[in-house]
């Protein structure tokens, strides 16, 4: 079974620039998550999709972050404009629907904003 695919693996941009990350979840997984992991901390949920609908985006900074999951499969996360504090690893995860299901994570995209 193929895992969660993310791209790019690394990205360096200047502050105020835009950036987009892509995620392809495991086939058949209805739930998709985007997490932000700052160095030395645990992952923080940004947004959760169930199929192509948003379940929770309460911690997504909506003035600069946006995410979509067209057709309930792939997802993109965009930051516009980026700030220095956005430097982090952005992790995508997917899972089957339901309680206590395992979330499978991609390798993440390491973003550095300079």
């Amino acid at each position, binding site marked *: 079974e193929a895992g*969660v695919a993310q791209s790019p693996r690394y990205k360096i941009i200047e502050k105020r620039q835009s950036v987009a990350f892509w995620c392809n979840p495991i086939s058949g997984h209805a739930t998709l*998550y985007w*997490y932000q992991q700052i160095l*030395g*901390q*645990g*992952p*923080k*949920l940004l947004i*959760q999709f169930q199929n192509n609908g948003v*379940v*929770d985006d309460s911690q997504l900074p909506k003035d600069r972050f946006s995410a979509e999951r067209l057709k309930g499969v792939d997802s993109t996360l965009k930051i516009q404009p980026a700030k220095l504090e956005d430097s982090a690893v952005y*992790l995508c*995860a997917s899972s089957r629907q*339901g*309680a*206590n*299901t*395992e*979330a*499978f*994570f*991609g*390798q*993440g995209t390491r973003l550095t904003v300079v």
Partner: protein
Amino acid sequence: TQLLEQSPQFLSIQEGENLTVYCNSSSVFSSLQWYRQEPGEGPVLLVTVVTGGEVKKLKRLTFQFGDARKDSSLHITAAQTGDTGLYLCAGPSGGSYIPTFGRGTSLIVHP
């Protein structure tokens, strides 16, 4: 938001030693999960505990869920260098199934 506090934050030990890391909350969780994250990789699920007082063993790793379902521990016996990584606990937040993570315990096992 239900917070999960993990301790210690950092742990550096020699191969062969035993260790325990903790995950605590003031809230009751219906379940808790433990993940391990290696550098440059995403977290990988180790175990899910759902019953208060439950003990699960995974080779040299022993996981315990507190009777009141507010805390959990992970004990590693005879640590190996391959155990090096960030150990994260996660629990569903606010009645949903969304896994919310603690800050993690960063473990380094020296040969």
